[in-house]
């Protein structure tokens, strides 16, 4: 069955350099630098990446950062809590706009 997403394509991420090597190199160097241990631990960054993966709904990223978080020592409770952070922000982002809705409603109401 043909689908838009193929799990094997994740391994080919590096091949994006085929069409534009210079920018790809800059991107991957930057990417590597971002995930290094810094003011945040590599583990914290992995959990952030996992939460963002759910926000952008990227199946490759979800596979990659579930594995990565496990390899950073996270358990199922921790990774699920990270996804709830995504859900809270996404839900909150919708709900906070209701202030605008209420403003407009009140503006138009007698």
């Amino acid at each position, binding site marked *: 069955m043909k689908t838009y997403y193929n799990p094997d394509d994740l391994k080919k991420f590096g091949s994006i350099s085929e069409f534009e090597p210079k920018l790809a190199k800059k991107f991957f160097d930057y990417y590597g630098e971002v995930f290094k241990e810094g003011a945040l631990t590599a583990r914290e960054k992995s959990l952030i990446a996992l939460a963002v993966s759910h926000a952008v709904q990227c199946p490759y990223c979800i596979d990659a950062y579930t594995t990565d978080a*496990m*390899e950073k020592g996270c358990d*199922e409770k921790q990774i699920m809590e990270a996804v709830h952070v995504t859900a809270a922000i996404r839900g909150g982002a919708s709900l906070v706009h209701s202030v605008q809705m209420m403003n407009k409603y009140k503006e138009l109401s007698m």
Partner: protein
Amino acid sequence: MSTKSLLAQNHELASAKSQVEFLESSLQTKFSEKLKEQNLFPLTTNQLEIFQINVGKMCNQVCKHCHVDAGPDRREIMTRETMQFCIEAIKLSGAKTVDLTGGAPEMNPDFRWFIEELSALEKKIIVRCNLTIIVANQKYNDLPEFFKKHKIEVVSSLPYFTATKTDSQRGDGVFEKSIQALKMLNDVGYGKENSGLILNLVYNPAGAFLPADQNSLEKEFKTKLKSIYEIEFNNLFAITNLPISRFLEYLVRTGNYIGYMEKLINAYNPTAAENVMCRNTISIGWDGYMYDCDFNQMLELKISTSAKSFDDKTIKKNNQHVSNFDMSTINQRSIKIGQHCYGCTAGAGSSCGGNTA
């Protein structure tokens, strides 16, 4: 969770030969090729430091990932006679450390006698204790005191600081019993600062992924075990699961085998390859045969009898048994390798003492 060993299940992968054939039939890059790239092939020995003895496959647990396929149904146990051969060999070897493993080594009826004899040799003695054995039966309850008396270094597996992950790998109720046993060890001074009694923990992943960074895991384990259970320990060793025995069976059954091997191969670390434990270790099986490591032991790959130099006439086949231990065989052998060895060279490297790179 099965409570039977692969052997008791008559599983095809219970046989060492089947495992080796399966692993070597892979089309993935051969481990020997990787070693050749850095001029490490054939893999040779460094000075012998660790004399590791597997005193038997009997165990009170049936862990899902066990590379020994140990369990209550295993009856292979080292005899006192073989232990005596080991003692003579240790004297000849100059090794600084004696590392006892199993199964649950404490279940060997001659375990305490052996420790007492070994103590006279004034070597560092390590016992790989699965923790639950201490509370499994009243006759084992005094093990912490016994370990203390002989200044044994205790190394114990605890895959995680939560019950769910620990029990999923090691069996129902194992976490709670392990915590109880750790408290008993702490109570006699193990893991406590300045006590001189060393208690190290082993983390290994509960699934088809690589272990986390050893230092950050140790930090997290220390914080959680102290704050939740008031448990202390010295060091944490992060160990990679090697694709043999029950862990291999799990990988194959769940469709994770190819992906896991790719992961290990992609994470090959030349520094870890230089420092693999088999270069300074000899591993003795329950029946007295000698191997380059505990994993080769389970794959029944006895030490090589082909000398680096053909002038050495002393190297004969019977030198594979500890009763014929001689240092020229040990020093001059080339180490037997296979696809399973990728487990020791991935990432930060893995050995019975944790990271190697």
